[in-house]
């Protein structure tokens, strides 16, 4: 079982980092909304699906991928703003569960509209050939796409950190996450802060969609379910509402998945998902507030 060479080990590390990057982006998108509003967006997976279908649309229009990718990411951002307008704005101020249910409803409407009017089958994304290209470093076969995923995510994390630290908008978001009503009292418009949070969350979902669906090579009306689940778990494991926690949660989740894929005897590999989620539940049992133990404003409110 442990007859793995160093090269094979390194290969799995690259796999885990690439997968973890996608999960981190998804978790970050979920946590961004939660940190500001204290609510969970069940339609986050649909942002991934919609970005995916927009990629398909732009690709069939014959646009170059250099244009398709930013447009698809932008679609994610705009779709997030639209979902906020439809599912969240009308019930602003309602109990937390209401948001969960309205966004669940919107998510199901979007899924079934895609099923009815776009396609009931998985559609090939015609991803460019460079998504499959690999190179070799000392016996380790590495996919360019994996490297791109990892580097882009690191770049995004650095940009986001700078954005949150240096820009006035980042400061507004952090203030809103800390104490939303106080933020409004000092003159920030609630709607613009919330729209900004959703736009950011949608952009992150768009980036994740490109890397996740690009690896899969196809998109379907319910493609968003798995990303949603992974983003949720990453965010909860990191401590709902903590942005850095969501990133850590994403990488830890991916590391566990790859670890169990490698370590489990082949007869038990189908149980990998159950074992990984079982581990997550164990983590939550021991640390009910997540790995980072982070508390968002919403959770603090609960305790005050």
């Amino acid at each position, binding site marked *: 079982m442990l007859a793995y060479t160093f090269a094979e080990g390194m290969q799995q590390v690259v796999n885990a980092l690439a997968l973890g990057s996608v999960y981190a982006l998804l978790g970050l998108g979920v946590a961004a909304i939660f940190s500001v509003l204290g609510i969970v967006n069940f339609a986050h997976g649909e942002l991934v699906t919609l970005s995916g279908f927009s990629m398909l649309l732009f690709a069939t229009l014959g646009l170059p991928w250099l244009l398709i990718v930013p447009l698809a990411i932008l679609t994610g951002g705009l779709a997030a703003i639209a979902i906020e307008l439809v599912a969240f704005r009308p019930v602003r101020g309602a109990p937390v569960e209401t948001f969960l*249910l309205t966004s669940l409803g919107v998510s199901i*409407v979007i899924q079934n509209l895609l099923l009815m009017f776009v396609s009931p089958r998985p559609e090939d994304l015609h991803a460019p050939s460079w998504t499959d290209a690999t190179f070799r470093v000392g016996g380790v076969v590495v996919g360019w796409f994996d490297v791109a995923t990892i580097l882009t995510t690191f770049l995004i994390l650095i940009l986001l950190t700078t954005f949150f630290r240096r820009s006035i908008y980042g400061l507004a978001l952090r203030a809103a996450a800390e104490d939303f009503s106080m933020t409004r009292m000092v003159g920030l418009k609630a709607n613009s802060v919330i729209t900004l949070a959703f736009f950011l969350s949608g952009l992150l979902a768009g980036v994740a969609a490109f890397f996740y669906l690009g690896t899969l090579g196809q998109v379907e009306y319910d493609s968003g379910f798995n990303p949603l689940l992974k983003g949720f778990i990453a965010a909860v494991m990191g401590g709902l509402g903590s942005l850095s926690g969501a990133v850590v949660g994403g990488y830890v989740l991916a590391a566990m998945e790859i670890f169990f894929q490698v370590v489990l005897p082949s007869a038990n590999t189908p149980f990998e998902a159950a074992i990984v989620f079982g581990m997550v539940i164990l983590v939550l049992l021991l640390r009910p507030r997540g790995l980072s133990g982070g508390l968002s404003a919403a959770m603090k409110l609960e305790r005050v």
Partner: protein
Amino acid sequence: MSGAESHAHPTNDVPDGSSAASDGFLSSWVLRATTGSFVLAAILAVFVVVVNGVGSAVTQPVLIIFLVNLPVVVGLQTFSGNSGVISFGHVAFMAIGAYTAALMSTPVLVKQTELANAPAFIRNAHFGFVGSALIAVAVTACVAFPLGFVFARLAHPAAASIASLGWLVIAQTIIANWYSVTHGTATFYGIPSYTTVWNALLCGVIVIVAAMTFRRSPIGYGLRATKSNPLVARAIGVNMVRARVAAWVLSAALAAVGGVLYSGYLVSLAPSNFFFSLTVTIVVMAIIGGPTVSGAVVGAIVISVLNEVLRRVETATSRPGLSTVVVAAIFTALMMTRPEGLLGRWELDEIALRGLRRLILSRTVRLAPRSREEVDAP
């Protein structure tokens, strides 16, 4: 409810709860649980008898599927309606109940070929409907118990909801891959057809009584208090973890009853039947009526009827997905305009009692009173 009503009961979620102990037997929680159960069970029985009496080849399956879903919906309500934590994991308990009942009731001869590698005690087990049902409920409750502590301890309700989605995936993965016992992703067949309208109705009544009794028991009131305000609840001595675990285990057991009925009606099982789409149906049924047992029953009836009507439109217009879109849209719109659900926060017997009281008051006191205080101080 009018303004005067809510004025009379500032803590709306716990009506008359505080005075229950001191008012003697006639207003004890046992009596209120009994009346509540009786009213609701009678409504269910009348509904089932009438629909069954109209009985056609079309309404019969719809009626049975409604009765199969009902225990799961009421079970989900027992946890979510009282604790305020929405669970997406109860279909997993339904699946455990369904598979356990199937394993216990399927004839030994069928199991020898179908599950040749299963442990001997499973292959040789052969119980009737009641025996299988009891074992299924007990097994499910035992599985639910340790899990309950995770969901009881999670700090934020949303975190618990997400973790319950994780539990659904865990159960799904295990059932789909435990080939020697569950027949894996392939269909599990050969289950005797034991579900009828009448034993399903009986199960529905039992489930309603259990849910109503829990809701109006001291521990149920305590749990509802934690939903309104966790800190105040703790201050008056409610142990939230204990109350939530109790509700969780009971709700899982009730969901298992639905699973038992399911396997006895469809006589074959596949793991994919117990995943997200059924979860959404059950959650919508449980939420749309309101966070009460009555709300769960009414929600299950409304959505079952709506689904059936829309399914026919769907086949007539050949637009798959139409019924789901319409139900989800109605659900979303209702959650926006009336987050308390169709019935609001009151049980049907409470609504009836209030209506009756108001009727009597308006007859006896000619000059319509402005406030409750004027009526109560003759």
